[in-house]
């Protein structure tokens, strides 16, 4: 993800102010932004596309439903990440406690990727997604979350710490251990090397 310009953050902050002032037109762009951010995070963590969409929907509804409590409108993104962490952690915990069977991999919007992309690339991406979800599923939830925030959203350590509600030093440890585990996952290494070579 590219670093967003200052203008984008100001635009979002302005949308937050307008929404709080009762401008219904501001709901759609804010909902879309919250959904996009949380869906990407959740898609790296959940075992099914439906679960990821459920989490994203809950996050977006919570974000918009409580915008009145957000003191700094420019903190919208940080707020979305924080709420995403809460919902995703709960979902992961619930999945474990109910011993839910593994859902078929359905994370990838294949239709959305087909435009102009060769089938071989689609296959590679599917394989990478499958390997990633498998490797991540073997990590503790907080390591998974920290890795997703870093590599999906490019968040710096301090912002990951804010989202997780922990110290920066803890983020260092989470990322370090998570990377080490992923590095040792042979299937993931193989498919991502394939992706790199194709890229």
């Amino acid at each position, binding site marked *: *993800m590219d670093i967003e310009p200052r203008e984008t953050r100001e635009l979002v902050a302005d949308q937050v102010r307008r929404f709080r002032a009762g401008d*219904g037109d501001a*709901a*759609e762009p804010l*909902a*879309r932004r919250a*959904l*996009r951010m949380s*869906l*990407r995070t959740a898609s*790296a963590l959940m075992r099914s596309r439906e679960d990821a*969409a459920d989490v*994203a*929907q809950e996050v977006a*509804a*919570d*974000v*918009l*439903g*409580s915008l009145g*409590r*957000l*003191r700094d409108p420019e*903190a919208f993104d940080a707020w979305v990440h*924080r*709420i995403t962490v*809460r919902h995703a952690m709960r979902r992961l*915990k619930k999945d474990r*406690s109910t011993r839910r069977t593994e859902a078929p991999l359905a*994370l990838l*919007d294949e239709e*959305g990727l087909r435009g102009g992309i060769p089938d071989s690339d689609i296959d590679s*991406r599917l394989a*990478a*997604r499958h390997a*990633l979800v498998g*490797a991540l599923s073997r990590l*503790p939830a*907080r390591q998974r979350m920290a*890795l*997703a925030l*870093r*590599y*999906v959203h490019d968040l710096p350590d301090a912002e990951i710490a804010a989202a997780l*509600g*922990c*110290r920066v*030093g*803890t983020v*260092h*440890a989470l990322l370090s251990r998570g*990377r080490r585990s*992923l*590095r040792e996952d042979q299937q*993931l*290494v193989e498919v*991502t*090397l394939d*992706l*790199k070579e194709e890229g």
Partner: protein
Amino acid sequence: MLSDHDEALFRAAFAPVRDIEPDEDLVARVVARVGRGKKASWRFALAPARPRLALQALVALALLGAALYSVPPTRAAIEGAGESVGGVFSGWLGGDSAEAPGKPLEAAEAERLPQGFEYLEDPHDAKEPRVIAEAGGYELYSYIGSSGSLNFLFGGIGVGLGYPSAAELGDAPLHLLDPGARRHADAQGHVPVFGIAARSVSSVELTYESGPPLRVSGVEGGFVLLAEPGRGPTEVVALDAGGKEIGREPINYPLVDESPEAPPPGIEGSGHASSGSHEP
């Protein structure tokens, strides 16, 4: 040390999710849901950096004051009521202070409640902040926000949780307020596990992968369990006055942060003062 190769590998691994966009139906559903005025749930675990010193001071003060009071019994089990954790707090939120669990904080105590929780309503604007359980220098505080929300603060942890209504707590007789409990073990190797319980719950039992469970009796709406992470805590079991199990909730998240950190000052050497009695 992370090599450039590793960094590229991780980026490649996550690449498939970096460009996902929500479909229009999903966007429309959220907008419609918000437009209908559906009250959204909002629960946050927060550990703001600045209140850390305030929290440490709070823990120290709580330890100093631990000998001065113990949380007295509140209205004990009321027949036919309080079968869910939501029921414990609904009366209080509805304006009946007699229904509230725990003990109201004195004004001076309330002033020392941690603040700076960006997403929680300010406890200093709160109605009737209360302490509903405590153990080993860790307190479970609760207060009603100015908008009527139900909030919890974990003294000694630096985390707050907010719920827009008691209904959000669910129908179960037991609810663990995780992952706010996560922190480093204190000098005795204990990690607090915070929870709330229905009035029908008179004791809770923390089970482990190995060794005997930890039972805390005298539970009246909330509890703080001093868990031993090394033994692998597995579940918290709710028991009624007759010792019959009426609910359980798994602990399937790590109790201890993975980076070293010193415990807050004042924790070392603290005992097991509690709203209930610990029976290891």
